[in-house]
């Protein structure tokens, strides 16, 4: 009954495929009789190969999908392995028995450790199987069945090559195999113009047989470039034993481990103490972190390329770089430069590293069609390099950044994995672009070996502004426009007649203030203009969503009146009365860096226009101002920077330094000194900056300060 049903299905399907084949080709017709004959001859040898998968050694499910052709949709479908594991399912692939205990099936490019078990089914019987050997040219593998009693219905390769040939093909639709017959189309070939290689086209999973149904050979790949050898029977196929293949993979892994290193990069903490917010590690964004783990790649000249995107502000704070060698030794490395447009730095290890270095692939990319490649995932696992190499084959191409052609591979995780050619030359390297170029922050592009080589061979591969800095130089790295922004809303947008341009106030910031001599002022921005977006280096327009504009507004008046009632333990948490000038826009702009040109989209007097300007360095602000820690008294004071002077309406020559910290329980705290009070004089001598304060306080224990709290003065005495 089952068989009958199967036969009907097959007949129906073969007719369908034949009709389609006839429409596309002018090859010999496949009539009903021929079809029946071939099906009858070859169907018994068809097996179903079931792959069961397991989690990897880290407990993760292997991140790949199995591709198979669905005859219903005439298209490919993908089965995610994670779903397969979860559902306790197997991925079923058709195969052909070629011996009593030997099955040839398609090569899924799997890594042995992902496979829990393989089972072969034929005629309702199930046999455990293992991979015996690989046929790399044919994208096929041979499985051997462990059961000594097994006796599969097999294919004999005794067909005639010179007559008319047919494909007996098998496909799998959710576990139910289908088979059909189409004329052999091996004489139809395509030529890869760039690589000058001729390929023969074939359906996948086929037995190529003569009109009697006697097999000539098997076919698993769509394109076969073997010319005369293409009809060789499997006994003559080029074979690599499973042990041999595993050994090559191990060698490649070793090569990677010799040339890639975990790198730890330590930055000194940011100087921005504008708002002393306590952040848990889990709340930190990338830019808040001071220690980074990355992976370095040894270059043939002994330098190391480290994938790490640092803004000029971050690079400015760079303290040290340490590489961990495969033997576990840690060596320091010297900063050489940051790539100009790409998020990577080049460092020079203090000692020569024994690896040979990674060479870039510089050949023709199009020539890589159908070539074996190595998809390589390199992870820094707690200071050790962990490598997963999965062999693959270039079947398609795509355009990458800069109109370059790069391979497009299935199960290749773009942005993470590296791609090596068969001889381990670097084919693809994911790098993110420097600066803020899109609003998602994920601006990773695939650079091919040639593009990388071009970067390194250019006259100035490094950004002269993106370098480590020392002392005060380090503080001047925050970029700004010099404007104050207010978030738009629908009412404001309607009132300014900019609803259409701002998506009804959803995006854009109203400029409420332009500071004198700022980049914004020199670009001609003025109060009342609306800033819509900015753009850097041919990147995307980064729109200012109005909800992202933090006016840093407390939402209430600063509680100067209640100030005495704030318990000491909260001193360090009191937000500054003035808005922090290092707001999110300035933080983003600082990622681009001082001195860089950006384009702004602005609505000025109701008209939209683009303006170009060069980002300026933000003057020192409360967060970066010079401080003096009067530890004998228990307080710190900072210079009154521009925004502090604005808030307290201090004229340029007015004296005063601002209390930035009062230690709870200290003499200063007892004496009633509070954060954000202005110290006007010490023992009657006016204080203009913290250096003067330091001079006046050092060595003294008894002093009297005149202190102003917003509007009220008082004398604070230390006895």
């Amino acid at each position, binding site marked *: 009954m089952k068989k009958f049903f199967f036969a009907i299905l097959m007949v129906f399907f073969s007719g369908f495929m034949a009709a389609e084949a006839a429409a596309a080709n002018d090859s010999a017709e496949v009539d009903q009789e021929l079809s029946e004959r071939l099906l009858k001859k070859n169907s018994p040898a068809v097996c179903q190969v079931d792959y069961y998968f397991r989690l990897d050694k880290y407990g993760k499910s292997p991140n790949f999908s199995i591709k198979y052709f669905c005859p219903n949709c005439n298209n490919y479908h993908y089965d995610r392995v994670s779903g397969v594991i979860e559902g306790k399912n197997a991925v079923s692939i058709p195969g052909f028995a070629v011996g009593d205990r030997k099955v040839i099936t398609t090569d899924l490019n799997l890594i042995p450790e992902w496979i829990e078990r393989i089972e072969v089914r034929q005629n309702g019987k199930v046999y455990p199987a293992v991979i015996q050997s690989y046929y790399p040219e044919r994208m096929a593998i041979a499985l051997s069945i462990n059961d000594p009693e097994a006796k599969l219905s097999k294919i004999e390769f005794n067909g005639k090559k010179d007559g008319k040939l047919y494909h007996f093909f098998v496909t799998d639709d959710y576990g139910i195999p289908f088979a059909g017959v189409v004329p052999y189309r091996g004489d139809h070939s395509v030529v890869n113009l760039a690589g000058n290689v001729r390929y023969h086209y074939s359906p996948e999973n086929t037995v190529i047989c003569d009109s009697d149904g006697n097999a000539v050979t098997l076919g698993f790949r769509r394109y076969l470039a073997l010319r005369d050898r293409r009809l060789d029977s499997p006994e003559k196929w080029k074979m690599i034993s499973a042990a041999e293949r595993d050994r090559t993979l191990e060698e490649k892994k070793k090569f990677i481990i010799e040339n890639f290193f975990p790198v730890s990069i330590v930055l000194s903490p940011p100087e921005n103490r504008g*708002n002393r*917010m306590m952040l848990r590690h889990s709340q930190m964004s990338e830019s808040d972190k001071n220690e980074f783990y990355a992976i370095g790649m040894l270059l043939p000249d002994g330098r190391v390329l480290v994938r790490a995107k640092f803004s000029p502000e971050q690079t400015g704070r760079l303290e040290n770089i340490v590489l961990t060698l495969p033997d576990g030794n840690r060596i320091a490395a010297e900063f050489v430069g940051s790539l100009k447009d790409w998020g990577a730095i080049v460092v020079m290890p203090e000692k020569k590293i024994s690896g040979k270095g990674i060479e870039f692939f510089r050949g023709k990319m199009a020539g890589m069609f159908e070539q074996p490649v190595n998809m390589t995932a390199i992870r820094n696992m707690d200071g050790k390099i962990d490598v997963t190499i999965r062999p693959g084959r270039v079947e398609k191409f795509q355009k990458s950044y800069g109109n370059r052609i790069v391979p497009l591979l299935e199960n290749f995780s773009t942005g993470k994995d590296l791609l090596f050619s068969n001889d381990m030359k670097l084919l693809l390297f994911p790098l993110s672009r420097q600066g803020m170029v899109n609003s998602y922050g994920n601006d990773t592009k695939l650079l091919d070996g040639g593009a990388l080589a071009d970067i390194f061979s250019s006259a100035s591969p490094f950004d002269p502004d993106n370098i480590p800095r020392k002392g005060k130089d380090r503080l001047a790295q925050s970029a700004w426009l010099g404007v*104050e922004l*207010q978030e738009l*809303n629908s*009412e*404001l947008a*309607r*009132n300014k007649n900019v609803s259409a341009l701002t998506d009804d106030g959803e995006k854009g910031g*109203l400029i*409420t*203030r332009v500071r004198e001599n700022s980049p914004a002022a020199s670009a001609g921005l003025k109060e009342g203009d609306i800033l819509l977006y900015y753009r850097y280096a041919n990147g995307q327009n980064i729109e200012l969503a109005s909800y992202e504009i*933090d*006016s*840093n*507004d*407390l*939402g*209430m*008046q*600063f*509680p*100067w*009146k*209640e100030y005495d*009632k*704030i*318990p000491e333990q*909260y001193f360090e*948490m*009191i*937000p500054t*009365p*003035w*808005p922090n000038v290092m707001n*999110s826009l300035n933080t983003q702009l600082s990622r681009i860096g001082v001195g860089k040109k950006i384009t702004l989209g602005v609505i000025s007097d109701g008209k939209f226009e683009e303006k170009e300007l060069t980002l300026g360095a933000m003057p020192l602000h409360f967060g970066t101002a010079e401080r003096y820690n009067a530890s004998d008294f228990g307080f710190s004071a900072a210079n009154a920077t521009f925004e502090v002077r*604005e*808030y307290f*309406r201090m004229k340029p020559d007015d004296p005063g330094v601002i209390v930035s910290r009062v230690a709870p329980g200290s*003499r200063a705290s*007892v*004496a*009633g000194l509070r954060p954000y009070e202005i110290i*006007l*004089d010490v023992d*009657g001598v006016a204080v203009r900056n913290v250096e003067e304060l330091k001079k006046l306080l050092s060595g003294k224990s008894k002093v*009297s300060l*005149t202190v*102003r709290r*917003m*509007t*009220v*003065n*008082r*004398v*604070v*005495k230390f*006895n």
Partner: protein
Amino acid sequence: MRWILQLLLITVLGYMFWLGWNGVPVQNKYQVREEDCSEATEDPATADDAAIEDFEGRYGSDIRRVVRRAGEKVFPSLVYIRSVCSNLENGRDAANSVSGSGVLISGNGEILTNYHVVDKAKSVRCMLYDSFASEAEIVGADKDLDIALLRLKKLPEKHKLPVAELYPEHVREGDFVMALGAPWGLTRSVSIGIISCARRYLPVNGNYNLWYQIDASISPGNSGGPLIDTSGRVVGINTLGVMQGGTIGFTIPSYVIIEVLDRLRKYGRANWTWCGFQLQPLRDFDTDTYFDGDSGVIVSGTDPESPARKGGFLPKDRIVECNGVKITALNQEDLPDIKRKLGLLEFGKKADFKVIRNGKEISISIVPVEKGRVEGGELALPRWGFSAKSVNRFDNPDLFFYAPEGGVFVFGIDYFGNAVRAGMEKNDLILSIGGEKVKKLEEVKKIYDRAIKNLNKSTRIEIVVSRNGRNNTLVLNYSTDYSKE
């Protein structure tokens, strides 16, 4: 970010705000600091001791009888006050009904009560002990002292008014006192206690007086009621209570009130004189701050545009004499007396100060001026959903700082109104409305009236406010009339 900051501030400040009672006239926002009561510096009560003996001779010393007699003596002068006060704090003109107490102090119907009982009152009704009721007018009121003088509009015909006697002297710790009044509106109530501290310094209001701290039970409604001693004399007016403090109450001493009664009658307010000093005592235990010597008071600073600043006073100057009278503030308890003395100087008349600056004695003369209003005017803008108030340098120093030439700020916001939707906040300084700069309440009123007249033309107006020194543009859409309901 903004949320975090706000949350943080609220957490921090949560410690400091005590829950007020809606419509409760007794102020209860004060937090008591634990500090020693200062010892009585002088002994004014030798005569009083004789009076006590005399009293004992007549009535005996049985406390029950003493209390009953004293109560009976003053009860007839006790007045129950109910006033309707305008309140714009919630952005609408919502009149509050306030109840309080008072005491008759003269035969022509003068009643002493608290300023906050009749603050912005539209009507004041008084009921005497014998249920005689009359409307009263406000003769004079002073916010700094929290004292108001009322006068009954009609007097009882059948009998003379029972008048209580204001005691001009200081009382001492441990003296028995009774608080009379209408706690929670329960009229003709009396509670008893002692003076816990006769010289309590509280940094509230104008700081022109020290307070009596008492442990007689005081509740909202006691406000303005008399505190009497066992001889039935009014020693003070009960003003402040502490909500969670149990039996802690604060009373304005009569000797202070007596000093300003004439000015209240003459000017309708205390009409203090203003020099603009920021003063600091020589010794402060709390902040461990001690200046050398034991005379004078430290000028820590001067208010902008004040006579003191114009006269050339500098921080750390030490005033030792004013118009030939020595001045000393050893502790903060001495400050109110000095401030009151300076506040009672004749304005417009030169005052001579002897000042020690950098160890040398110098003379500075200034011409103090009238302090004037200590609170700005208020204006309800119902359609806009907020109320505006003039910035006053004494009431809103932080706003005055940004608007020294005068300004208007957002006093109250109607939480079911248009302003709250526009993102307006309390204490926003209003810089311009509809492009017109505003500095005075009248200007706001004019723009508002025009806007209401032109409702058919436009229902949207741009308001620029300054918040924490930074400008914000708000667009107020007042197409909906929330004030209708």
